[in-house]
């Protein structure tokens, strides 16, 4: 494959990704920081999370391809603001959830949500 063809192919792939990530999962968070926060808070104790070492918990659902989930916890629309709230304080949305309210800042929650939306 020539260099030109390679660049063309890469551009095609990148633009395709771009268009699929526009709506509705737009979030102001840092994916890399989100990944670090997930490691630090050890979310992997309960969840399978691609890209997080040792994250193979079965207590909660797998978060693989999270971006494609239509519902959060099978119940709430998977929208950025809803996800941010759920990550930080799940019981305030779902009183019967097993997921505790975890101490973190708004920014950390946004970063985590951004990371989850990077999982396709």
């Amino acid at each position, binding site marked *: 494959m020539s260099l030109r063809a390679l660049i063309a192919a890469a551009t095609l792939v990148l633009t395709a990704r771009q268009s699929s990530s526009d709506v509705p999962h737009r979030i102001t968070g840092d994916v890399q920081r989100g990944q670090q926060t997930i490691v630090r808070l*050890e979310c992997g*104790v*309960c969840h399978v999370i691609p890209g997080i070492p040792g994250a193979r918990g079965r207590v909660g659902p797998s978060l693989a391809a999270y971006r494609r989930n239509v519902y959060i916890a099978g119940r709430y629309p998977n929208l950025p603001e809803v996800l941010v709230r759920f990550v930080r304080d799940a019981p305030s949305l779902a009183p019967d959830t097993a*997921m*505790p309210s975890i101490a973190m800042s708004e920014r950390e929650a946004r970063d985590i949500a951004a990371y989850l939306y990077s999982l396709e």
Partner: protein
Amino acid sequence: MSEMRLPSALHAAPGSGAELLSELGLVLYCGAGIIFIVVVALALHATFAKPSPAGTRAWIVGGGIVFPLLTLFLLLNYTLAVGSAVAALESGTALQLLLDCFGIDAQKRIPPPSPGTMRVHVIGKQWWWEVRYEIVRGDTSTAVLANELHLPVGEPVELLLTTTDVIHSFWVPSLAGKVDMIPGRTNRLILRANTPGLYRGQCAEYCGGQHALMALYVKSQPRREFETWLQRQARSVTRPDDAFLLAGYEAFFKGTCPDCHTVRGTPATGKSGPDLTHVGSRYSLAAGTLRNHVGTMAGWIAGAQDIKPGNAMPDSEIYTGRELRALAAWLGSLE
């Protein structure tokens, strides 16, 4: 509790036995390096220099007998002196002389235990550490905790090390050398750190499937802070008033938790698992495996076998989501 700054395990804490061991290592490595260079130089000289029969006997006797004898004699005494200083043996006159000869001054020696020395029993288990402070001499039942040890800064603390199952080895690299925990025996180790800090320890003798996840934290802190901490560890807990925490308390007794765990002040008196009376105050869960917060607590209760497969704690699968959260919150509140 979530922010932990740990020094490298290669860094010996000031005033600890590890400092003397680290100096010993340095002397051995540098000495071996110098001898190696000299031997290589002599070998090159012997290969390339013009042969001369003069002084052959002196080289053989000097380099082959006198030098190794002298070096080994000095090294043997030095290692014995370090061993004595680290093991806190009573300083008799001969020992004193030996220690002085090798520049191990009184500041660096770990003092032998006096009648007032704090005694702590550490019992290795698969795969965690039970820690029992003797607040009153001979009584090991008032302050019981797990996977964590606190020391007053600058004071020697005597550890009595044993095990109830297989052989483990107690090792906090920044503070002291390894000491094995052997069934039916009690080994002694004196720990001391002259500066406040947090150190990590690790089981250093393979003890089964989760040996790698058998760690502990050692915290050295100012005397007053240490005493406050110890008094709190000795306290019992009471039934909570808050409705959510009470739901957690009830969930604890709804499950099989009290069969294995003790929470002093409650009907829970299980003996085979860690005492949970002040579990909320600890740095880690599952023997240094997880940080300690409400999320990891809930995850550990419901998925202990995912996190540490084969450990004695089963996955608790009987709780509703709310009960699990309440249970994790109640345990976390036990500080």
